[in-house]
């Protein structure tokens, strides 16, 4: 009797799972955007080296490859020693810089490299971005992983979710005006994830199951929210105008509200972290450029998180917001809309042009410029005229 009940219970669970899977596939396909991250020796997450996996949404179907160094790149990592005449640009950021929902040639990193090459600059982009990273994790990566590659420029993204991520990670805290590492690692769910990822069936599940993806996303949201609340209370983050910036959602497009986690954080901590990244970059002989990831309110309306959350950026910064607004049309998608809202190839192309143009205009890559370099990358006018191609 007990075995029969047990079997019935198990059968009901399996059947419910199958029902849910079919239900979602038929009525509300979920974005399948696995991350393939593991724990790094430096206490923060890292992309799994040498893996290739599929990302699928109702709008895209792409393969993402991490090379042996865990960088999103279809090519093997370059040697540590920099070849003569080549400059290196290190990318620090989250899934926008990783290039989620984009094929490698259309990702931000590949387009940035192409833009610089077109301008006659021999530069290699090294992509250290990891999905879900905030500035605190970027700082650890800048201190521990990047220097050995001897970059000339570091481009770090600033995203609306960063303030909440910085609070949530608990990697650093402010002691007066001084930024102090807490000494704690931040590897949320990595132990469990590593165990599960060792099982091929689980890998199949995360790349193919709509039900799993939906459940995981919701559970992730809840856990993230709780972590922010707990860490915020511990850090005593205030809710005044300095600490919190609420980005109003677009009234007519409720599904396109600001990214989750936007609007929570501690602006003093954020500024201290950014300044620390600049210091670490300088120690490694590189210049830091803070790059804005605009918040999408509609196909034609974008907000600048740097302007909204930081006011005046404490380091050199650039935003593609005005370039996005210049080309925006109701029939043009710069962000995917049915997945995780990452940039489309058009969005990546514009963002990469803005970044390349800014870097070149600052003369930070002068050592790697060939004769007649710097002309073709100044494509801002072309962007504003709307002449973009995927």
């Amino acid at each position, binding site marked *: 009797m007990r075995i029969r009940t047990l079997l019935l219970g198990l059968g009901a669970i399996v059947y419910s799972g199958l*029902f*849910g899977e079919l*239900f979602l596939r038929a*009525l*509300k396909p979920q974005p399948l955007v696995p991350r393939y991250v593991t724990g790094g020796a430096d206490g923060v997450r890292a992309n799994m080296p040498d893996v290739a996996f599929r990302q699928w949404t109702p709008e895209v179907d792409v393969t993402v490859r991490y090379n042996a160094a865990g960088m999103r790149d279809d090519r093997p990592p370059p040697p540590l020693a920099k070849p003569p005449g080549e400059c290196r640009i290190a990318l620090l950021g989250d899934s926008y810089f990783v290039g989620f929902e984009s094929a490698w040639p259309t990702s931000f990193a590949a387009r940035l490299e192409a833009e610089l090459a077109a301008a006659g600059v021999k530069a290699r982009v090294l992509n250290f971005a990891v999905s879900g990273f905030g500035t605190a994790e970027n700082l650890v990566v800048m201190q521990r992983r990047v220097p050995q590659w001897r970059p000339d420029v570091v481009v770090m993204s600033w995203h609306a979710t960063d303030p909440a991520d910085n609070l949530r990670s608990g990697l650093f805290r402010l002691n007066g005006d001084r930024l102090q590492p807490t000494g704690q690692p931040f590897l949320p769910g990595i132990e469990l994830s590593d165990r599960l990822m060792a099982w091929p069936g689980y890998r199949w599940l995360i790349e193919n199951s709509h039900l799993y993806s*939906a459940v995981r996303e919701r559970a992730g949201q809840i856990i993230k929210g709780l972590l922010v609340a707990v860490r915020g209370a511990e850090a005593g983050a205030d809710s005044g105008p300095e600490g919190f910036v609420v980005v109003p959602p677009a009234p007519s497009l*409720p*599904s396109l509200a600001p990214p989750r986690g936007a609007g929570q954080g501690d602006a003093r901590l954020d500024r201290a972290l950014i300044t620390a990244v600049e210091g670490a970059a300088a120690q490694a002989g590189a210049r830091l450029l803070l790059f804005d990831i605009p918040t999408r309110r509609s196909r034609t309306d974008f907000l600048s998180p740097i302007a909204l959350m930081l006011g005046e950026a404490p380091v050199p910064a650039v935003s593609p917001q005005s370039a996005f607004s210049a080309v925006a049309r109701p029939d043009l998608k710069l962000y995917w809309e049915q997945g995780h809202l990452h940039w489309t190839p058009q969005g990546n192309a514009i963002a990469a042009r803005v970044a390349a143009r800014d870097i070149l205009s600052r003369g930070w890559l002068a050592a790697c410029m060939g004769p007649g370099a710097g002309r073709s990358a100044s494509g801002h006018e072309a962007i504003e005229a709307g002449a973009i191609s995927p």
Partner: protein
Amino acid sequence: MLFQTPLFFIFFAILMPLYAATMQRLRLQNAIVMVASYIFYAVWDLRFLSLIITATSVAFLLGPGVAGQEISRRQLRHALLFLLVGCAASFVPGLPGTLFYLACCLGLGVALLVFVPWANRQDSTRRAKASLAFGAVFNLGLLAFFKYFNFFADSLVDLANLAGVELGYVTLKVVLPVGISFFTFQKLAYLIDIKRGRVQPEDDIIKFGAFVAYFPQLVAGPIERAGHLLRQFDTPRTITRQGLATGAGLFLWGMFKKVVIADNIAPLANLAFADPSAASAGVLWVGLLAFTFQIYCDFSGYSDMARGLARAMGLELMVNFNIPYVSRTPSEFWERWHISLSSWLRDYLYIPLGGNRGGPIGTYRNLFLTMLLGGLWHGASWTFVAWGAFHGGILILYRLAAVDKWLDGAPREGAGAMVRDLGLIVLMFALTLFGWLLFRAASMADVVDYAAGLFSHGDLLAGAWGQLAAFLLPLFLVQWLQLRLRDLEFLPRVPGFVRLNMVLGLVFALLFLAPAAPSAFIYFDF
């Protein structure tokens, strides 16, 4: 506290074990229900808790008086204690208006201290009349103040302005307490039923408090009668597996109607009604149909959820909706739509006005007045008045044409009957659509723009027809089964495997097809 939010699930998860643990201690269980209901209400606005407590005390104390009995010192003591403790508990220093409500409570306490000895000195007939008059004036006064003050004041100002007189100072900003129309009508019905000898006055203020404030039906009905719900608080309840299962089924279906259907089609209605003059005919038709089903799914969803919760607790609330859009005539529609209100209006307004006893003219007048006041019950707006008048008008027209009488004598089976019924249903649905246009429009000018646009703005295929159809499909399927099986709760009758799939479908739809942010029920505004 919305039924579909995690906060409510936590609330209910805490309440149920306490409720179940006190099955053998009826008075304690009633006290738990009452306090839980007050907490449920206080989450919206603690200040207005004093309103329910005040109204409960008054109705409790007047009950024996309306029955012609002497109001005892014990009853007076209990009512005053209840009033003062409740009002003190809902007093929040610093909250706007809280001092006003406390002062009103104290003033009412003094009024009761004066009224009760005076009433006790009168003979029973005079005492009954005076007590009923006190109760009616008090309850209708509350409703008039909170719900209609602004409307009548604004209308007076407009009228005076037309005559060249400035009266701008009359307007006050009175906030509408959620559910006031529902619990006011419930208490009025209690007093009138005592007067008519249908129920006995309640002697236990805790039990009476639980009846008045019972949380599943407190803010949006069904408007329960004392003879039905109050009597259920007399006897021990039982929680059964069947009650839990069917209650959960009702709750799930109600939540599906609200969260998945109503909330997903609401944007279609909002888009069309936002600027009717600028929308194409297709968008306007989709918007009107969307609102027609939105308001039904929203309100009947709430009623089903309320009934499901009550059943899980071993209590039964009345059926409030019975597939209204398959009605053939206006009178049938009102027997199927918001049944607790339409039967209330019939019993406590239409019949006291004379019902159909005053000849055809009197009957038509009473029908029209009842529907007009039914419209006004929904809110202080000319569009609601017009909606009530429209329904009164079509009730009269159908009565003049003796359609219901003709149907009573006509054959019920066969192809001819089916075609006839279908034609009548389509006609009645079209009339209902126009009624909802009056109900939903922001102003009478919008009604004109909208109605004109339906037939003159071209491009009928524009608008989200597919989206509307996709969300209505499960509703049509379930209602077809309800009609075919002649059972609103047919779920236990279908084979186990089909039932499992239907429940799984509901659960997954609730989890994954609901809009991200929960929205309040439409009838909370009434």
